[in-house]
Structure formats: C-alpha cells, structure tokens
C-alpha cells in the first residue's frame, strides 16, 4: 500500500502565531483516515496546505505523489474537497453550484449527481441564499461525492446535517471506501469516526499527538475498574499505572493503564475478589484525554481520572 498523503514536520506560521508546529500525518491509499483534534488545533490549516492554498513554511508535504503547492492544478483533478462551512454565492442555485464544481473538475457525472440529490433530499432549484447550514453542506457533499476523485478531503463535512443525513453520508463514504478510494475526514462526530475510520490522527496545538487504529489508541488508554474485595485494597496504591484510587471499606474504584492491567488484576485476586466491573475506555474518554492533556504521560493523575469515572 502506498501513501496518499505524507506530511513530515509541517510548520506554518501566521505572523507570531505558530498554527502548525512540526505536524506529521500519513494517510495510506484506500483508507478512511480520521483527522481529529480540538478547535484551533490546526486541522483546517493543514487541509489548506494540502490543497495548495497555503504555502508551508517548513516540512515535507507529499500529496498523491506530488507537491500540493507546485502541482496544485494537476493534483486537484484527482481530489474533491468539502469545507466545513460551505460558503455559496447567494444568487446561484444549489444545482448550478454542483455543476460548476463538477465541470471545473472535469468529471461531472450527472446521473450520479441526480442520485445523490435524491439520497440527500436536496432541492437543487433553491438559491443558495435560502439554504440552511445543513443544506449548504449537502451542496458541498453532493458536488464532491458526484466526482470520481481518488482522494476526498472532508473538513467537518457533516456539521449541521440531521441524523438521517448523517447516516446517508456514512453509507456514501463506505461506498467510496469499497471502491478503494482514499478519504481524509476531519470530524468531531465520534460515532462517525468510529463507524468509518480505519485509522485516526489526533493533533493538538499544531502537532500530532497520536496516530493509529482505534484499537491501538484504546490500548494506550486505561480501563476503569469497580471492585469489591474481602480485604481493603490499600496495597493497590503501590502498583504502577493506577490512577484515581478511591477506597471505601472493601469497595474500590480506580483507573488502570492497559499495560498494567494484568498486575492490578493479580493484586485484586490476592485480596480476595468478590465482584468486578470493568469498563473499556469509551471513545469520548479517549479523545477527552487526548484533547485536554496533550500527552498520556506526566499528568496529575487526579485530573486525568475525573473523566475516566464519568
């Protein structure tokens, strides 16, 4: 498998602001890659560099084997883009906008366009001024999905879509994936990420925090445990990887790094295990930790375990 996008050490500054600070991103061909991070982390800036709209200050960026700044026009024949806030010309109808983009890209498939209009329940005759936020996004999505582009770059494409349309979108992306095409999906909708993405990259403050499959990321996280033991579990505090320990008589709750799970379980059974409930980390917990902490190490454990318990 070759990589559709390879970004190494990307730096982009705006005046004194360092928007991207050595960002890395690898998207393999044929995968759906989740691009996640808190607001202002640099997702849209990265995407604009990938589109050749912004020039990188430092670092290497290879998109579909080319240089996104120098080979912009050639590369754009092979990709389709949906911005997070589709801004349209107020007096031009949605149908016209879709056609304009299709013709500029040179691969307008009007049959597929009509199918997509139907699936997304979009009225193409309305002037863009009268579309709601969700309907403007649909215009952008139909324009992009009606193409045969081998790479889709989607920047929070479903913001404003209703759950029904969200599921139509997920179906469409699954089809795109089945055709072996590549998708870079920036999103805050975790259910969408979980359903669609093969791998994810989490960025924060212009740097890549984590990259991998969801199960790999889960492994980096910790499991929450609620247990009852015959003897009070004070000795757990001496073990590595234990966080937010709360002991109430024979009842105990704590979070444990997955690498240290085995040791913790052994200690619990030594203490005489009566009951045990364990929760794998939810996606929310995973992301909250990544977004908030910045790193998995060197954090005050108390702080970190607040969300593990919620």
């Amino acid at each position, binding site marked *: 498998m070759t990589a559709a996008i390879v970004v190494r050490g990307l730096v982009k500054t705006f005046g004194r602001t360092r928007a991207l600070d050595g960002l890395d991103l690898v998207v393999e061909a044929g995968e759906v890659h989740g691009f996640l991070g808190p607001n202002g982390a640099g997702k849209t800036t990265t995407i604009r560099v990938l589109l050749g709209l912004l020039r990188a200050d430092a670092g290497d960026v290879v998109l579909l084997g080319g240089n996104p700044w120098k080979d912009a*026009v050639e590369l754009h024949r092979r990709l389709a883009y949906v911005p997070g806030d589709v*801004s349209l010309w107020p007096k031009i109808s949605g149908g016209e906008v879709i056609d304009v983009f299709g*013709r*500029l*890209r040179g691969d307008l498939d009007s049959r597929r366009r009509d199918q997509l209009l139907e699936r997304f329940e979009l009225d*193409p005759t309305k002037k863009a001024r009268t579309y709601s936020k969700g309907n403007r996004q649909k215009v*952008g999505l139909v324009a992009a999905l009606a193409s045969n582009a081998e790479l889709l*770059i989607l920047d929070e494409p479903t913001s404003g879509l209703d759950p029904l349309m969200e599921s139509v979108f997920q179906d469409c992306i699954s089809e795109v994936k089945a055709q072996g095409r590549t998708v870079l999906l920036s999103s805050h909708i975790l259910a969408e990420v979980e359903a669609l993405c093969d791998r994810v990259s989490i960025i924060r403050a212009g740097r890549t925090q984590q990259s991998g499959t969801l199960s790999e990321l889960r492994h980096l996280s910790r499991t929450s445990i609620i247990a009852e033991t015959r003897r009070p579990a004070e000795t757990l505090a001496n073990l590595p990887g234990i966080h937010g320990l709360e002991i109430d008589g024979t009842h105990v709750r704590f979070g444990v790094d997955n690498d240290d799970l085995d040791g913790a379980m052994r200690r619990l059974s030594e203490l005489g295990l009566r009951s045990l409930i364990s929760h794998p980390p939810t996606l929310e917990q995973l992301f909250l930790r990544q977004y908030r902490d910045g790193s998995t190490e060197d954090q005050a454990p108390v702080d970190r375990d607040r969300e593990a318990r919620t």
Partner: protein
Amino acid sequence: MTRTKDGLTGTATVTGFIVRRDRVRIVVWVAAIAVLVALLAASVKGLFPTQADLDQAAAATNGNAAVIAFNGPAQGLDSVGGEVAFQAGAMGLVVVALMSVMMIGSLTRGEEEAGRLEMLRSLPVGSHAPTAAASLTVATMNVAVGVLVTLALLGQHLPLAGSVTFGVSFTLTGLVFAGVALVAAQVTENTRVVYGIAGAVLGASFALRAVGDIGDGMLSWFSPIGWAQKARPFAGERWWPFLPMLAAIACLVAATGALAARRDIGGGLVQPRPGRRSASRGLGHPFGLALRLQRGSLIGWSTGLFLTGVAFGSIANSVDDFVRDNKALADVLAPAGGGSLTDSYLATSFGILALIGTGFAVQSTLRLRAEEMSLHAEPLLATPLARWRWAMSHLTVAFGGSVIVLFSGGLAVAVGYGFGGGDLTVLPELLGAAVVYSPAMWLLVGLTVALVGLAPRGAVATWAVLAVCLIIGLLGKALDLPAWLMTISPFQNVPQLPAADLSVLPLVALTGIAAALTWAGLSGLRRRDIG
C-alpha cells in the same frame, strides 16, 4: 404595556457597537461630502469673480433646460451663494441620499443577510433596537453633514440664512432617503435589491424634479430633492417646504415599524423565485461564472453611465451660450490643443464619465479579494483551476467591462447630443472619444490587481487613488493645481478627444503600465497564501 419600550432595549449599546465597527466609513462619508461642498464653493468663487460674471452665467442658465435639468431651478443665480447652491445642490443632495441608502442598507438588511443580526437578537436586545440603532447612527451622520456643510459655506463668507437652509436641506434629504432604504430593507431579503429599490426612488426623484424644474415646477413638488430645492437657499429662503420632508420621514419610519412587525427575521415580504436545476453551459467555465457573478453590477454601471451621458450630451449644444464670455469657465474647459468650446465640453464630459465608470473597474477587480475573503474562492481553487486563470476570469470582466461601460457612456452622450439638435454623424467620433479612456481605466484595474496580489489587506486603497483622480479631474483646474500634480492622474494623460488630436503614445504607455501592474499582481497572487 411597556412593549414599545422593551422593543428598544439595548439600542444605546448596539449604536455604540455600530460606531465602533464602522467609524472609518462614517467619518469618510461625512467628511467627503463636506469637503466636496467646500471645494465646490471655493471653485465657484474662483470661476465667477465679478458680479458681471455672475449675471452673465445667470442669463445663460435661465433659459437653458438641460443645465436646469441637471442642477435644479435657476434661482438666486446673481449671487455667489445662489450659484453655489445651483452647482452643488442637486449633485450634493444625490450624494447625501446615496450615503444614507448605503449605510442603512448595510447596517440593517446587510447585517441580517449575513446572519449577524440573529446573534444580536438572541441577546436581551429589543426587536426594534438594531433598526433604531442603525437609524440613529445614520441620522447623526446626516445632521453632521448638515452642520459641516453650513460651516463650510459660512467659511466662504456666504450669508447665514442661506447657509443654514442649504445645510438643513442636506440633512433632511438624507433622512428621507434613509427612510426609503429602511422600508426597502423590510420588503426584500437581499441587500443589493434594497440598494436597487432606494436607488430607483432616488433616480425617479431626480427625474421628477428635472422635468418639473424645466416646466412650471409642479412635478418638483413630488420629489424630495425638489422639496429641498424649493426651500430656496440664497434665493429668498423659506422654511415650510421642509414640512413635507419631515412628514415623509415620519411616514417612512412608521411604515418601517409596521412592515417589520409583519415579517420574520431573515425573510422579506416578497418571496424569492426558485433558480435553475442545473447550470447552463457557460457557467462551467471560470469566465462564465465570473460574468454571471458580475453581470448585475456591469448592467447597473452601464445604465448609470448611460443616463449620466445622456444628461451631459443634451447640454452640449448650449455650452457656447453658457460659457462664451466667462474666461474662468472657458479656461477650465479649454483643452491643450484648442478647438471649439463644444468639443472641449464634450472632452471634459468623457473625462468625467470615465472617472465615474472607473468605479466599476475598481469594484470589479476587488471582487477577487471579496471572493477570497468570503471563502467562495477556496473550493474553486481546490478544483483543477489555476490561480491565475481564476483571477483572469474576473479580470476579463474588469478589462472588458471597462470598455463596455465607456462605450455605453459614449453612446449616451451622442444620443443626448442628437436629441439636443446636434449632428449625429459624429457618433463614431464621440464613441472613440469615450473608449479612448480604456487604458486609463485599465491602469487602475492593474493597480488594484497589484495590490490584491502583493498587499491584499491594503487593496481597498485603490478607492482612495480613484478619489484623488476624481478631485484632480473635476476640480483640478478650478483649484489651480500645478501641472505635475495633475499628470499623476492617468486620466489627465489621455488625449482629450474630440477637442485634441489622437496621440497613440500615451495610450500605449498607459496600457503597458496596466499590463505590468497586472502581471506583478498575478505573480504575487501565485506566491501568496489564499484566505
């Protein structure tokens, strides 16, 4: 109940916010109008230094329908004040009306269309507060214009009563058209249509008073501009024509309140029509899209220049009577090469038309920056559309549209000239005399592209450059500006046809500079970040 009071909750805060946001625009409008009136008053004093000059101009004006149509009723022309009111009156009133319409349009419907009003209205802000704040701001601007205009005239040692009447007529005219724009902003959901409706009312007001002033003055009573002029500044002032203006302002404000209660936020009283299901063939090409986006503006400017051109052309035949013995005025019109006064007048007219038409050229070029800032350019440039091709699509409209706008103006001058009894065989010559200004307009297009490409944040500065060219072109001779200063305006370097001979060299030079600036701008655009 306290409904009305609640409806205005937060007006003061919103007004403060408007002033903070738009302080530059507010100050520039008010100062520009005051300065223009002051300059015009000064130039009238220079043009008619003696009572004999005034009397002669008055005699020539009295029977001249075309001049009256353009400026207003011939009243009090034997005094400097009367002549100032005549020269500055109609145009000044139109400009103050435009100020009010543009400000009200963008502060009310413009904010609403952009979705910003919605956020404001979700706060504990009364439903009428945003409109009230916009009205308060624009009303204050009009009062400031009136006061400054009065002070400007007093500064030229003109009589107090006339100066005050003239100032008040500016304030009230501005307020009437602010009211028209307020009502229009309730009717349609599109800000540009607000400008269109209010502009049409302004045009009709101007036309009604033009026809009225030529005839028995009856029709002028149906026009707000007519009311303002019926107050006769410097010609036996009377205050009561201001009463219908005050009544109109009250009615328009009441109508705004009533209409606003009948519509939803974001909506209008008129529902929009559906658009096309799919794009026509031309729209798939970048140029087709640019033309579609700028079509309305091109048609609007061409029509505006046509109407102005007809007015200019219709006066051409009577210029000789008007200017014959006035050396100062003849000097202003005199071209470098000599020739008849009519030809000089026509040449000057084309210069003015070209300057006005350059408004289109600059606006059209700045569309590039507007498309970029509104994020419309981003998804387009994410398709296989090279930046320079995207830029050229709009620049083609700017370059070609400049010629079309000039052509429309030239045609109109010829039509007006023909109507006024002139010889229509000169049509090709007059068209040529208009279109010869294209290279000067292109130079400003080039300058704008250079700024958009190399210093995008300062791109609006081209408007200031155009303003300097306008002052040089309109008032340069009257103000006795030095020759070197005059020649910095590209428009002064264009051969003044039909009064002077055609010389190709300056045209080639202007085109060359325009091309170089365009090239610089395009290469800057290729190198810089978008957005």
